[in-house]
């Protein structure tokens, strides 16, 4: 990336942060929202994050066979549902990822 693109990226993403977190704080005037927009607000973050995560888990597997990442994700999700907490989710997923990579390398 050239410098100009990097600056545009940082400025643009900062504007996105400021805009999204201040949407209802910019003005004191009441801001009624149509019901459809409220529904979109509720679903969009989950949709966007899932759309980013899914190909990373299902398709982009440069290290080892696809089941390595997917298996690690299943174990991390299992931890999340059992205990909650982002720290344990990351740790359990990484340990599973290393273990499954090692197994796939040794057995293949």
């Amino acid at each position, binding site marked *: 990336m050239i410098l100009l693109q990097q600056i545009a990226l940082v400025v643009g993403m900062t504007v996105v942060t400021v805009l999204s977190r201040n949407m*209802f*704080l910019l003005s004191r005037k009441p801001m009624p929202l149509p019901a459809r927009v409220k529904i*979109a*607000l509720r679903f969009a973050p989950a949709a966007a994050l899932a759309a980013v995560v899914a190909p990373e888990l299902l398709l982009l597997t440069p290290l080892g066979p696809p089941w390595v990442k997917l298996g690690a994700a299943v174990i991390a999700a299992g931890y999340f549902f059992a205990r909650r907490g982002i720290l344990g989710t990351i740790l359990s997923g990484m340990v599973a990822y290393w273990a499954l990579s090692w197994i796939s390398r040794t057995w293949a």
Partner: protein
Amino acid sequence: MTTVHRDQTLFAQPALREGMRDMRAVSLGIAAWGLVTGVAMVKSGLSVQLALAISLFVFAGSAQLAVLPLIAAGAPLWLILGTAFCVNLRFVVFSAQMRPYFEHLPRLRRLVYGYLIGDLSQVLMIRRHPHPTGDPQQTHYFLGVSLANWIAWQVPSIIGILTAQHIPGAWGLAFAGTLALLGIVLSLLADRTIAAVIVVASALSALLFWLPLRLNLVAAIIGALMVGMAWEAWSQRQLASSGRLLDGTKP
């Protein structure tokens, strides 16, 4: 009271200290997430300077992680920013929830407080002060929570950025960023409609991955939103009740 005087006494406020204490109790998870984000940014190919600028200015972990694959794939800027905005739409909901607490403040203060809104600071604020009263104690508490959140995020993030190049690529630490995002997706799983939205978005995004410019994201988000809205409309008709759309959002 002059502004200078107010700012000097602000950090002596017991409510501010209480907020910092409450956040410190849950800061380990934030710190881990910050560290992972810092490492993942550099491991996915960003320069140290760019990663530092993003960490300090953008200050939005899930959006930062979400755009990494797009930047690596050379996606156009509008798609990168659009994805970041979609991921950040939960903050729009938070800003609506925080509005009654900050309404009485001058605009600049409102904007600074708004910029500091985070997932956990918002949860702690609503838990500690469920009813906005306009009492300065409440905004002091929010500031305490948010400052502790900022420190608990930025320090590990910067450490991660500065040490990432010394961590071997074979450790696959960029995957930790994906796992952090997975955890956030799962934490958003409040009801069956959101589960359907997540399944549809995942399936469309993976099936349409062959599209250029990572346009699979656009198709996946639009498709999932349409399914979510249709599902919601159907269950609304089933329940024949309304008015709990925003309340149904899990903080």
